[in-house]
């Protein structure tokens, strides 16, 4: 179990422009933390900073209170980027096996094969194991990528829009699965989502990022409020709840002048 803590993380691709202007929040083991916000808010950048692919300008990312090196981070963090390519000529089994890269030697160990087999079985991908990834549908490919992320037995799972190109059923299936693994394996899962309804349904904590800062952070009920969403997305929304779930219905875009008054 590893607690992820961000403290005043700042980042800019060039010195004059800051995308992230001091982000702080905490992600707990066994919980899904959803990061939401408009396009260009810096959500993907934030995940790359946590995965140590990008270096923050200032601020720090702590894992269980420790500032880990890039190599140490690689061992406990699994990151699934938004842009994903699997070469078509790799079988599903091989694609998942590659997830264990830091452990692989020239001769693949029995233990690695076992872990790959178990993960594939758990994700019900057995029937595709020998198939080439080019022969899979979008949903199946995403499942393979999630298997690839899980096979590393991560303590922290970072997912950048894992369901954005999928149909409703696949979206639900994949998020259910992520939820199940997060709870069972006590993983600290941080997931970037665009769909606020999915964030409300699956996330234990939602972090809204706007203009490089955390605008709101907490459970769905406390965070997904009309005035917050009007400010962040410049959209008028209707919020309702049923079966204990919050539902966000976007109504109309707000004019810029209205937004500047509210903000």
């Amino acid at each position: 179990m590893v607690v992820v803590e961000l403290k005043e993380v700042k980042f800019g691709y060039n010195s004059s422009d800051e995308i992230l202007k001091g982000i702080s929040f905490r992600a707990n083991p066994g919980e899904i933390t959803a990061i939401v916000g408009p396009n260009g808010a810096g959500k993907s950048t934030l995940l790359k900073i946590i995965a140590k692919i990008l270096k923050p300008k200032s601020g720090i990312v702590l894992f269980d209170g420790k500032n880990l090196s890039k190599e140490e981070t690689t061992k406990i963090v699994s990151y699934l980027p938004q842009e994903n390519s699997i070469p078509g000529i790799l079988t599903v089994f091989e694609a998942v096996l590659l997830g264990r890269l830091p452990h692989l030697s020239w001769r693949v160990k029995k233990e690695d094969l076992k872990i790959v087999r178990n993960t594939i079985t758990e994700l019900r991908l057995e029937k595709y194991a020998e198939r080439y990834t080019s022969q899979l549908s979008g949903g199946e490919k995403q499942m393979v990528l999630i298997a690839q992320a899980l096979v590393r037995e991560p303590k922290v799972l970072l997912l950048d829009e894992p369901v954005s190109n999928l149909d409703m059923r696949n979206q639900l299936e994949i998020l259910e699965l992520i939820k199940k693994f997060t709870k069972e394996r006590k993983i600290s899962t941080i997931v970037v989502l665009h769909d606020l309804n999915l964030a409300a349904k699956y996330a234990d904590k939602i972090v809204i990022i706007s203009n490089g800062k955390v605008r709101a952070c907490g459970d769905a009920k406390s965070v997904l409020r009309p005035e917050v969403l009007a400010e962040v997305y410049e959209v008028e929304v209707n919020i309702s709840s049923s079966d204990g779930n919050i539902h966000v219905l976007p109504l109309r875009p707000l004019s810029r002048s209205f937004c500047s008054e509210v903000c």
Partner: protein
Amino acid sequence: MTDIADAYSKIVQKRFLFIFLFLVLSSLLSFVNLIIGPIKLSPFEILQSLISPREDTTSIVVWEYRLPWTLMAVLVGGALGLAGLQMQTILNNPLASPYTLGISSGAGFGAALAYVLGIYVIAVPSEFIVPINAFVFSFLTCMLILTIGKIRGFTSETLILGGIAISFMFQSLLALLQYYASEEALQAIVFWLFGSLTKASLLKAQIVAVVLIAVTILLLFRSWKITALRLGEEKAKSLGVDVESLRVEILLYVSILTSVAICFVGVIGFVGLVAPHIARILLGEDQRFLIVGSILCGGLILSAGAVASKTIVPGAIFPIGIITSMLGIPFFLFLVLKGRREIW
């Protein structure tokens, strides 16, 4: 249902079998290469002079001509196959070949300098003037590409565009040299650019062999990381691969390998582009097998080309660069069109 881990082990076994078949085919083709030539020698005579060389004509023909020719075909083909594979991987482009970054243009210009102006960069025996010039200029090309990469970042786009620019630069310089060249020099340049195994020697084969073996070992140690490169830059980074330094490292190996291979035989096209694809179709993307497979496949193609170049026009040796394309393209198209699998 069979266990999926066992099924994977079976796939691995199948790949070993393919590699073994490649090896057998290579050996057979090499032997055919030793047999064929203007002087008729029986397989028995060839074996005898290989095992116990004597001071007779047979031994001289075998050791001075046939063996260097045969070994050069396998080794240069293998080197080009491996170089092509790694170019395709680091540039993430199925159209890449060892020459994509302008290495052949640099080498061509270097060779032409020696032929036309008699300029050579290092004082060496006359046999090595052209190869050394070609090597130095092809290596210089790679250094230029690396410098561009250092300034603009080692993305595939930067490397390819930089390579195209450098390639055109050397091509126009080469054209300039050709314009001023004497008739004999022009003929020598054109013949060099066709690619030919006629100047093969055992020493040259040994040099190519040492470089090829060294690069292969270095790459095999990194085979999982190289395979992971195909998952995309960010994914590879998140798996702990230092993408930039791996690219630079591979680029350097490929540069040395290509430069050494073509400096002795000239520009032999097609092998470096197609050998990796044929190996990929048969062995998949796992670089542990693909590296060895591309070498063997490249060696096979060039060996077949070498046999054909001696047999197409009786009594003459047809330039091998022309043969490899003519021979290989129909086979490659057959694989692309008939195969049900993806090839990239």
